[in-house]
């Protein structure tokens, strides 16, 4: 378990001219609907508590209007909280003065936007350089760093093009390179891949995971797409109406949904694709030599061929080839049946 990088405590956001006035009634349990109909204020975030682990990908998921974009904008304070604290490395972001906030945004966070938000009047090189030029870094140094990231995202040769000459996927690579160029600890990705078509999206997801292996950034990733969340997220938080309804890893979300909302959300997910062997493992026991052997980190789907040729189940080994337990054939059939309903 890594240390906590971002800690969100009792965070409330009420949109409206007089938001402070209603904070205590919201804390006492006034509902979102009541606040809206009686006082014409919108409850954006309702008592959010969340710890984001260092160097992990934290996915925040919810339908539109659930407050996920509002939440991510509290990390770099593009939106001011009504109440509560957000700390990064133990420092309370909500207390920063203007200058310190600018410094924080310049050095600690990078952000990628749903509709790219590139600067249309600047070429790709200048777009990627933007964060560096804001910091008034040495010009040749910042060009070098920008070129490094342009190469990393596979856009070498496009430095002098303008954003609208690039396809959506390429534009978002520029967005990613721009966010990474300042080498921030935290990457905020607001529905970064939602505007891309499915093939490109998968491609970008793979690229992000590949980059993350070496970069080890703390990534906060907003999405409304559960498949994307399950693929990327080390942990997944689900928001509904500004409330955090569940926070857990993929298995917990799938197998133990906290309420009906989450259950509906995960209903259509292809479980055998997402669930790994380790989640249904019976630890210990004896290795049955007549059975095939699989890895704990394989998905159930990947093990289906092995199941077909097995007698009674599977032997399971860990990364170091040590036998850790077994999975019976009946258990897998059970899961297959459940994922059908």
């Amino acid at each position, binding site marked *: 378990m890594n240390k906590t990088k971002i800690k969100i405590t009792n965070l409330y956001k009420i949109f409206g001219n007089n938001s402070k006035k209603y904070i205590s009634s919201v804390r006492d349990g006034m509902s979102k609907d009541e606040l809206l109909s009686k006082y014409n204020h919108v409850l954006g975030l309702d008592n959010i508590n969340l710890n984001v682990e260092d160097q992990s990908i934290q996915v925040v998921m919810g339908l539109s209007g659930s407050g996920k974009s509002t939440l991510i904008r509290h990390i770099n304070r593009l939106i001011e909280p009504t109440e509560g604290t957000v700390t990064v490395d133990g420092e309370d972001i909500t207390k920063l003065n203007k200058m310190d906030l600018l410094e924080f945004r310049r050095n600690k966070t990078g952000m990628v936007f749903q509709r790219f938000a*590139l600067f249309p009047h600047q070429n790709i090189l200048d777009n990627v350089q933007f964060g560096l030029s804001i910091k008034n870094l040495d010009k040749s140094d910042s060009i070098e760093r920008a070129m490094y990231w342009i190469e990393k995202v596979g856009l070498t040769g496009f430095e002098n093009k303008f954003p*609208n000459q690039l396809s959506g996927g390429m534009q978002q690579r520029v967005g990613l390179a721009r966010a990474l160029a300042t080498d921030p600890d935290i990457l905020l990705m607001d529905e970064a891949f939602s505007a891309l078509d499915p093939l490109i999206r998968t491609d970008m997801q793979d690229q992000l995971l590949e980059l993350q292996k070496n970069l080890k950034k703390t990534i906060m990733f907003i999405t409304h797409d559960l498949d994307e969340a399950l693929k990327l997220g080390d942990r997944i938080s689900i928001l509904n109406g500004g409330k955090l309804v569940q926070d857990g890893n993929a298995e917990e979300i799938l197998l133990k949904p906290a309420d009906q909302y989450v259950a509906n959300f995960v209903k259509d997910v292809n479980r055998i694709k997402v669930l790994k062997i380790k989640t249904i493992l019976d630890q210990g026991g004896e290795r049955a030599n007549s059975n095939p052997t699989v890895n704990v980190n394989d998905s159930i789907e990947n093990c289906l061929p092995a199941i077909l040729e097995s007698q009674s189940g599977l032997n399971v080994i860990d990364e170091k080839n040590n036998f850790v337990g077994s999975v019976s054939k009946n258990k897998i059939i059970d899961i297959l049946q459940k994922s059908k309903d």
Partner: protein
Amino acid sequence: MFRKSVDGAYRNFSREYGDTIEAVFDPVLYFLVWFEKLLQNSPWPLIILAILILVYLGSRSIYLTIGSLIALLLIGYFGMWEDTMSTVSIIGVCTFMSIGLGIPIGIAMSNSDRARAAITPILDVMQTMPSFVYLIPVVMLLGIGKIPGLLAVIIYAIPPIIRLTDLGIREVDKEVLEAADAFGANKAQKLFRVQLPLALPTIFAGINQTIMMALAMVVIASMIGVKGLGQPVLKAITNQYFTMGLLNGLAIVALAIIFDRVSQSFGKRLQQHRSGSRE
């Protein structure tokens, strides 16, 4: 009663401070006179060449450049060269001053809704009030001559550049601004690196409008002693010299077309990054 007291107070004010205020405008006057003399005293082929180079650089159109050459030669042939140069100099100075004053005011307006609410009605008055009305206090204060003419032209011509600077900056995509914020850009960085460059095509449309309105004002300004193509037009009206009025009128039209086409195609070239076909 009301009229008398206001008029009296203003007359006293202008007697008291007229000279001081006139002195404030002295540098502008020197510059204007210097510019006019430069245009009138340099050999005309040199001036034509300079204008044609500017036309070509601005528009990148060979047809427009040839058209300008013909128009300028005709102006010279019909003996309107000196008046035309006077007009060009006053339009030039007015445009520079309008840009210098108008863009900062436009930026201030885009920055605060309160400033916008305060300035917009003033601009409305400046654009709709008959020009003769504000010529009266200007003449009372500064007498007849170049400076009051200059002021009258600027008052009439500056509103579009202010409005369009404000509009251009307000129209900048909110998401792009948010991105600039997210990377820690401060206000000045946002203004000079994002807002102004993206507003530039709109601002340029404002500059174009300002030049056109300044040209339209030239005839009226000639009533208070501004030299240039307006004076022969005025003379032609009072004496019913139809040909003289027509020729000078056509010279104004020719200038207007040259200024308009050049500034428009220059403004369009600024927008090229939007069209997506750079090569």
